């Protein structure tokens, strides 16, 4: 306690100005400390794609198959995006699969049996999701039943509800033009390029604006080179994807032309942006992380923990409803198995593979999209290689287990090194 250095004003954190090398070093030490983020999913995606591309160069690498990947994985990805919110609290929703089935059945009944316009059916399906989520959330937060039990009961009950709604054993077709278009039609190539431009410019604007504000306020920032790299990376990835999707994929161009970005892609992209904004940029999102990280601390900070818990189940079931709509669109019908069999486990798998922790407090909506891509690639690639459904299930199970191990191990590592 010498008197020389009692007070030194200025920012508390005096660190050297940011450099690209320093940025890379920080990232590496974070990864080594157990904060692996989306790295396993991205690496897995690269490895899987390489393997399938070598084994089945003509079919896996075709533009048609690339478009298929999106429509195949869309429903699971959408459900997984909702599950991320529940997983962030360290809870689980086992009923999300059949909840999507119930919502799809409501959609089909409203549009086909009752004959209402498509948008009434969509609203009815989403409203059903909200009601389901509110009920589950109330049972968990207000009565205090573990979410595992509540949603397991939901899993069974909703399976029955789907059966009742589609009258045992039959199915209800969905023929409405708009609804069918969601998972089966494509954007005009020019529209695809226009949306890409909007996305890249929007992202660049947000990133550069943030960089400028922080520099102006004298706060520590990522080096501008890293910001530029991020923007460039997004532009390259989106540009390549849209270019490939805009290639002609019809077997016989004279009969019909088939090209463009599938309509589900912008649907997922918009929901991804909204979900990310809510989680990262609003206090509601901040409170979700807080409750997931330390519920008691959140309560003492004045956060209404129960409300947060109920709301994430509402979000999850609503996203399941959207997933159900996409599934109904893709199949052109709803049957007793819509949202059943492996849908839920694939969705949970997608979120976890993408890097969302089962222990709560860690995860992003983007994880669901990356993990959903991994699941879709496995399903698609193994199908092309002629493996049976049995083998696909086993492999997906192993991948999920691998992802959960990465989650558990990185957590242990983080505890040991004090980072997270």
């Amino acid at each position, binding site marked *: 306690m010498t008197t020389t250095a009692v007070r*030194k004003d200025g920012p508390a954190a005096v660190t050297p100005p940011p450099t690209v090398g320093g940025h890379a070093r920080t990232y590496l030490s974070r990864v080594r400390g157990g904060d692996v983020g989306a790295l396993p999913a991205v690496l897995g995606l690269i490895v899987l794609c390489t393997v399938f591309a070598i084994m089945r160069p003509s079919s896996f690498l075709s533009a048609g198959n690339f478009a298929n990947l999106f429509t195949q994985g869309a429903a699971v990805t959408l459900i997984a995006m909702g599950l991320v919110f529940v997983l962030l609290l360290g809870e689980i929703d086992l009923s999300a699969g059949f909840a999507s089935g119930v919502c799809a059945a409501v959609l089909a009944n409203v549009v086909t049996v009752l004959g209402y316009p498509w948008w009434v059916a969509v609203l009815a399906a989403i409203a059903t999701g909200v009601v389901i989520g509110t009920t589950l959330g109330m049972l968990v937060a207000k009565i205090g039943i573990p979410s595992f039990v509540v949603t397991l009961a939901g899993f069974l009950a909703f399976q029955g509800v789907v059966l009742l709604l589609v009258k045992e054993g039959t199915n209800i077709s969905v023929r409405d033009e708009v609804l069918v278009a969601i998972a089966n039609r494509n954007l005009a190539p020019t529209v695809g390029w226009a949306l890409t431009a909007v996305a890249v410019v929007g992202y660049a604007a947000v990133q550069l604006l943030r960089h400028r504000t922080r520099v102006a*306020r004298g706060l520590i920032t990522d080096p501008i080179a890293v910001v530029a790299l991020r923007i460039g990376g997004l532009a390259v990835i989106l540009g390549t994807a849209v270019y490939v999707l805009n290639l002609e994929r019809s077997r016989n161009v004279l009969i019909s032309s088939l090209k463009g970005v599938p309509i589900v892609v912008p649907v997922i992209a918009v929901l991804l942006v909204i979900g990310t904004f809510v989680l990262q940029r609003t*206090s509601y999102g*901040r409170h979700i992380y807080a409750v997931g990280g330390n519920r008691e*601390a959140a309560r003492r900070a004045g956060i209404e923990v129960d409300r947060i818990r109920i709301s994430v189940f509402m979000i999850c079931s609503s996203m399941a409803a959207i997933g159900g709509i996409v599934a109904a669109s893709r199949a052109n019908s709803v049957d007793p198995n819509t949202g059943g069999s492996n849908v839920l486990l694939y969705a949970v798998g997608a979120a976890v593979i993408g890097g969302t922790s089962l222990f709560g407090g860690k995860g992003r909506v983007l994880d669901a999209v990356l993990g959903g891509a991994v699941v879709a690639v496995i399903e698609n690639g193994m199908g092309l290689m002629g493996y049976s459904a049995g083998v696909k299930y086993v492999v997906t199970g192993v991948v999920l287990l691998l992802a959960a191990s990465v989650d558990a191990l990185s957590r242990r590592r983080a505890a040991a090194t004090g980072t997270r």
Partner: protein
Amino acid sequence: MSATPLLELRGIDKSFGPVQVLRDVALTVHPGEVTALVGDNGAGKSTLVKCISGIHPIDAGEFLFNGEPVHIGSPRDAATLGIEVVYQDLALCDNLDIVQNMFLGREKRSGIVLDEPTMEQLAAETLAGLSIRTVTSLRQHVSSLSGGQRQTVAIAKAVLWNSKLVILDEPTAALGVAQTAQVLELVRRLADNGLAVVLISHNMNDVFAVSDRIAALYLGQMVAQVKTTDITHAQVVELITAGRSGGLGLATDPGSNGDGPQPADSISGGVR
């Protein structure tokens, strides 16, 4: 000196199930003073703090804030009054960074969007004002901080809000010598700036170094509240361990022979 106390508690009772942890507790806290709350392990200090901050509902008794009766039903009520608490079992979220923790539940926003630059700036200023220079980045997760660093973050969080009353539950228990001295200096500075401070500590040197008054809890009862200058080390220790200290501990109380604190054995069944 006899201005209205900032906070006055009267007849606070609190039970957890069959166990009565606080009985008929009274406490007055004055602005510009450090009130040390002492007592043995399990005496009920932390419980009393949690009652003041709205975490535990009280069974009976009343709170007066600035002389006005108030009801504190939730942590938010306490925060609105200007009461901030640094908890013994730290209330920080490991998965959030320093800035996020400091503003938790009271985030600064522009529109619906979080105003991160402003929060980061305010956090940096607060930490600098407390001469805290041990953290390398405001954006590191709290889980990567040492115990002492976490404690400083928790205190900075309490100070950030221009609070009127800051309660610190054993803030120096996990700190090294230098950081303890810094925290105590900080505690003193808060009081000198006109805040009311309640400091819970088991360390008598700390208590005598910074406090203006000492309140002693013994098995859930407030056995004495005296000026620090009117009492000795040994007497405080006796109050803590036996609930009484000859005539001197209760010398401020004229009828110190029968109706003072109850002998320990008559209530030993109540609290383990």
